C-alpha cells in the first residue's frame, strides 16, 4: 500500500503543477498588481528637471486630470512613445513627466551631472517630440518607489482630486489609448 502510494506521488505532483499552469495561462503576467489604483497621489516635493529653483508638490497638480508619465532618456521604449504622447498633448491631454534616473546613488556617485542630463533630455525631446507640460526630476527615485514603479515607461492617470485611476506599464500607443485610457477619459470629461 505504502509503495503504491509512493509510486503515485509523481503523478499527483504533476497534476498539481498542471492546475497551476492552466490557471497561469489565463492570467496576464504583464498585469501589475498595483496597490495604487483608487488611492491618492502620494505627497512629494521634488525639483523641476530643467529649472534649478523650481520645485513641485502634489498640490500643484490638483484640479486637473493629467497623465504622469515615468520615463528616461536611457529607455528606448520611452523614445518610441514620445511621438504619440505629443499627439495626445496636441489634443489637449495634460502630461507631466516623471524623469526616472536609472542608477544614481548620492552616497557613492558624487555630485550629479545635471548639465549633461538636461542636454540629453532636450536633444531627445527636440528630436522625437515634447509631450510634457513640465518634468519632475526624481533623482533618488522616492516618488517612483511610492508609486510602485517597476521600470519605464509607465503611466498613471490621475483625476482632478488627485486620485490615481489607472497604472499602465509599457508604452502608450493608439491601441492602448483606445482600450485603456480613452474610456476613463471620456467619463471624466463630460
Amino acid at each position: 500500500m505504502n509503495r503504491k502510494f509512493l509510486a503515485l506521488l509523481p503523478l499527483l505532483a504533476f497534476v498539481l503543477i498542471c492546475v497551476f499552469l492552466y490557471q497561469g495561462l489565463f492570467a496576464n503576467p504583464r498585469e501589475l498588481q498595483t496597490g495604487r489604483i483608487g488611492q491618492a497621489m502620494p505627497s512629494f516635493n521634488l525639483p523641476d528637471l530643467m529649472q534649478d529653483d523650481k520645485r513641485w508638490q502634489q498640490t500643484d497638480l490638483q484640479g486637473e486630470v493629467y497623465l504622469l508619465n515615468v520615463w528616461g532618456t536611457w529607455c528606448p521604449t520611452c523614445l518610441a512613445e514620445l511621438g504619440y504622447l505629443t499627439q495626445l498633448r496636441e489634443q489637449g491631454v495634460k502630461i507631466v513627466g516623471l524623469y526616472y534616473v536609472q542608477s544614481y546613488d548620492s552616497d557613492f556617485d558624487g555630485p550629479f551631472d545635471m548639465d549633461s542630463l538636461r542636454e540629453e533630455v532636450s536633444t531627445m525631446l527636440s528630436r522625437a517630440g515634447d509631450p510634457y507640460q513640465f518634468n519632475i526630476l526624481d533623482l533618488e527615485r522616492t516618488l517612483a518607489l511610492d508609486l510602485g514603479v517597476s521600470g519605464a515607461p509607465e503611466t498613471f492617470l490621475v483625476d482632478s482630486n488627485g486620485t490615481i485611476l489607472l497604472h499602465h506599464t509599457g508604452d502608450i500607443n493608439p491601441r492602448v489609448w483606445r482600450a485603456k485610457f480613452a474610456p476613463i477619459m471620456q467619463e471624466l470629461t463630460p
Partner: protein
Amino acid sequence: MIPEIGYFSLTLAMVLSVLLCIFPLWGAHTGNLRLMRAAPSLAVGQFAFVLISFAALIYASLTDDFTVAYVAYHSSSTLPWYYKITSTWGGHEGAILLWLVMQAGWTAVVAMRSQSLPWILRARVLGVLGFLGVGFMLYTLLMSSPFELLLPYYPVEGRDLNPLLQDPGMIIHPPLLYMGYVGLSVSFSFAIAALLTGKLDNTWAKWSRPWTMTAWGFLTLGITIGSWWAYAELGWGGWWFWDPVENASLMPWLVATALLHSLSVTEKRGVFKSWTVLLAIAAFSFSLLGTFIVRSGIIVSVHAFATDPDRGLFILAFLAIVVGGGLALYALRVSEVKSEGRYKLVSREVALWLNNIFLVVATLIVLLGTLLPMIHKEMGLGSISIGEPFFNKMFAILLVPFAILMGIGPLLRWKQNKWAFLQNKLLLCALASIAVTSAWLFLGYDDVAPLTLLATTLAVWIVFTTVLDIVDKTRVHGSLQNGLKRLSVSYWAMVLGHIGIAFVIAGVTLTSAYSVERDVSMKPLEVVSLNQYDYRFEGVKDIRGPNYSGHAGVVTVLKEGDKVARLYAEKRQYDIGMQFMTEAAIDAGFTRDLYLALGEQLSNGGWSLRIYHKPYVRWMWLGGILISLAGFMILGDKRYRNNKKREQKNQSEVA
C-alpha cells in the same frame, strides 16, 4: 507553390506518424509481427516528408518569398544567405518545425539502429515516438503553421531577423538544444516501452543508455553555446541570468544528468530500477515543460516569444496527456518491480544515489524558483520576484557536498568498500588541492574570499581525485600503458565529464570573483589601464555590413608596451528595424578575456566605453564542451555497437 508543397508534405508526414503510432503499438499488443515490422519504414518515411517540408521553408526564405507570412516577418532580402537559413528557426512557427525535424530524425535513427532489440520492445519504442510526433505535427498544422500566406497583399520587403539573432552562436544554439530536448524523448519512449512490456531489467537500461548520453551531450552543448551567445551578443558581459527560458533548459539537463548516472547503476547492478524509469520520464517531461514555459508566455522572460493562450492550451493538454499518461503507467506498473542487488553504505551505489539526490534537489530549486512567482501570484499573495541571489546561494550550498562526493564516488567500488582503504589517499588529495589552490590564488590575487578559495579548491579536488582514480585503475594491470588500454570508453567519458565540471566550477567561480570593469569616457589617443593592460583609444571609424551600418571604436590593447590586440567594438544600426545593437569586441584568452563595448558619443567629443577584464571566463565553456564530448564519446563504446549478431537470436525469441 513551394509553400503548399511544404504544408502538404507535413500533412503526409502526420498521416504516417498516426500510422506509426497505431500499427506497432497494436501489433505489440496483439502479437502481430507484420504490423510491428511496418514501424521502421513508417518512421523513415515520416522523416523524409518532414524534411521536405523543412526544405520548402528554407527555400522560401532563401528566395525571399514574402507571400509566406513567416518569411515576411522573420527575414528580409538584404539578410546574408546563412542568416536566411537560420531565420527559419528564429521565430515560433519555424522553431517548432525544426523541432519536428529533430523529432522525426531521432525516430528514424532509432528505427534504423535498433535492430538488436526484440520486436515487441522495438515496436513499442517507435510507437511511443510516433505518438509524440502526432502531437507536435497536429500542433504545427493546426495552431502554428509556418506556411501561412499573406495573399493577395504581401509586402515587398520582410521585417528582417531580429538583429540579436544574427550571430553565429544563434545559428547552432537552437538546433543543438532541440536535439537534446527531443533526444530525451527517446529515453522516455524506452522507459514507456519497458513499462508496457513489464520488463524493467538491466537490458532496458543498457539500450537506453547510449541514446540518453547522446541527447544529453547535445543538450550540454546547446546550453553552453547559448551561454556563450549571451556573453558575446548581449553586450554586458553576462553569461547566465537565471531567466525562465534558461531555467527551462537547465532542468532537463539536471534530470538527464541524474538519469545517466542512475542508468549506469541499473545497467551494471540491477538496482534503482523504478527510480531510473521515473527519471527517464521526468527528463523528457521537463523538456516539454520547458517548451510550455517558453512558448505559452506564462512567465515573463527577457526572451519573450510571441505568445498566445490557445497555443499554450494545446501544449499544456499535450503535456498533460504525455506526462500524465507516462506517470500513470508508472504508478500502475512500478510497484511490481523488485530490486535485486545488495550494497553497503560505503559503495558506489550509495555514491550514485547521493548524486541523484543532489541533482534532483537542484532541479527542484530551479523549478520552484521558476514557478513560485507565478503560483504565489495566483494564490493571491501578491507579486514576488525570485532572481539571481536565490539561485546563486542555493547552488553554492549544493555545490560543496556535490563536488566532494564527485571526487570520492568514482574511487568507490560496487557493493562495498573499506573506508580505511581510501582514507589516506583522499586526505592526500584534499591537502594537495588546498595547497595548490592556495598557491594559485594567493600568488595571483591580493584578495581571496573564503568562498572563492573553497569553490576553486573543490574544482581542483575533482581533478586530483580523478587523476588518482586513473592511476589506481591502471596500476592493477601492471604497466601504465597496459592499464590505460584496458580502461573502457565509458570510463574515459566519465573522466572527461568530471574534468569538464571542474573547469565549469573554476571558471564560474574565478570570473565571478575577479572580473573587473571600468566605465570610461575616452578621446582619441587617450589611454586607460585596467589590470596590467593599457587600452589606447584610436578613434571611431564608420562600418558598413550587408544589412547594417554603424561605427566601430578602435582600441589597441597593450601590455607593458607590447601590442596584445586591436579591438573593434561596434555599434550597429540595422537597416530595416533601425534597432541599435552593440557588438562587443572580445580578445579571448585561456586565462582571461578582454571585453569591450562601445557606448555613446559624449557632448565633449569623447566616447563612452565599457571595459571588462574577465579572468578564466572561457573555462566555463571549455568545461561545457568537454562535458558534451563525454556524452558523444559513449557512441564509441564497443558494448553499444556491433549488436547486430544478437539480432537473429532476439527475433527467434519473438517468433
